């Protein structure tokens, strides 16, 4: 009897294509792949992107970081975060319980809203709930505030939780996005940042995906300014001639959620500088 019920359920799952999502197992496999591919890289160093795997570029970068080009953005971000008074008299600190140390709390899955909440989304939610206009998501003031908050979460451990059906669903969507080929050039994130990581593409060396969220926002010389993680996602979409999505679209938020979970256990070290 028991056996029959069990095999009926099993058959049902098989036929309906139910997949047993196992984020923890995904994470282990993801990390082990990079540990094996780059055995010389200390685990904690994956937060440094391409500079974890290329010594020459690392030295140039370390020199740049002595007088980082995001310094001005940081100062501006500090003022924006601490001195902005909203129309109703409130300020950012009314929305962020941990004040300037808040970045470590993001992204997380908000069950009530049934969506992933990233730091940048929270910044704009805060503004809107106090009667202000939202900021543009990919660059400008939001990236400056984000940089200031990132600085004060440096050294904190990335610790994203994925539990409950709705959160797992968002995670799975992000995972699907990461592994799907798109654009005219038919590339998935995994094609460039996993199997090809460490290889050259034009003037660039492809960084491993592990640790990819830790260093944001970044100042890029190519941009000549500081930008958010979703700005970078847009760039990577555009490179393969896929249409970039708006900042904080569900797809990008889920992708950020997935990637952050893959990097659990590593440390935040934003903001940073990239070519």
């Amino acid at each position, binding site marked *: 009897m028991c056996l029959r019920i069990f095999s009926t359920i099993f058959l049902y799952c098989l036929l309906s294509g139910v997949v047993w999502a196992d984020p923890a197992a995904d994470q282990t496999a*993801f990390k082990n792949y990079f540990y094996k591919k780059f055995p010389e890289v200390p685990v904690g160093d994956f937060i440094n992107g391409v500079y974890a795997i290329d010594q020459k570029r690392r030295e140039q970068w370390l020199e740049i970081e002595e007088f980082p080009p995001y310094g001005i953005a940081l100062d501006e971000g500090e003022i924006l975060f601490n001195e902005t008074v909203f129309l109703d008299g409130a300020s950012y600190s009314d929305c962020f319980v941990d004040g300037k140390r808040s970045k470590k709390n993001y992204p997380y899955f908000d069950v009530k809203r049934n969506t992933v909440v990233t730091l940048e989304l929270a910044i704009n939610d805060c503004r809107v709930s106090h009667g202000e206009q939202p900021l543009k998501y990919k660059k400008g003031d939001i990236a400056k505030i984000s940089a200031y908050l990132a600085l004060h979460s440096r050294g904190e451990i990335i610790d994203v939780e994925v539990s409950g059906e709705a959160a797992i669903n968002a995670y799975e969507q992000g*995972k699907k996005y990461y592994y*799907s*080929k*798109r654009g005219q050039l038919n590339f998935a994130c995994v094609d460039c940042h996993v199997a090809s990581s460490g290889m050259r593409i034009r003037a660039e060396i492809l960084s491993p995906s592990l640790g990819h969220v830790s260093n944001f926002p970044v100042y890029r010389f190519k941009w000549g300014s500081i930008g958010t993680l979703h700005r970078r996602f847009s760039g990577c979409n555009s490179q393969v001639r896929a249409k970039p999505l708006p900042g904080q679209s569900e797809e990008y938020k889920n992708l950020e959620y997935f990637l952050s979970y893959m990097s659990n256990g590593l440390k935040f070290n934003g903001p940073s500088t990239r070519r």
Partner: protein
Amino acid sequence: MTLLSAEATQLNFDTRWQKAEDLRMRAALKGYEWRDTEKILRRSREEYTAGNKARALSLLSQGLAQSDAALAQAAREENGWKRRVIK
């Protein structure tokens, strides 16, 4: 060209252009729109209005082909991505 056939050509162009646009939007809804399709279709429309029919039609074919290919990609990837997951 008689007025009638000019109208027929316009109608034909509009129908084909709208079809390409619909396909582009379907691909976008699935999250698979390609980067340049919208631009190509817009330019096709502009060339047509400017009287450059041959260029307009060539661009329209490109836009149509891109939208088709993006939708095919979306269908392939519905399950295709699973093969790439790191195990």
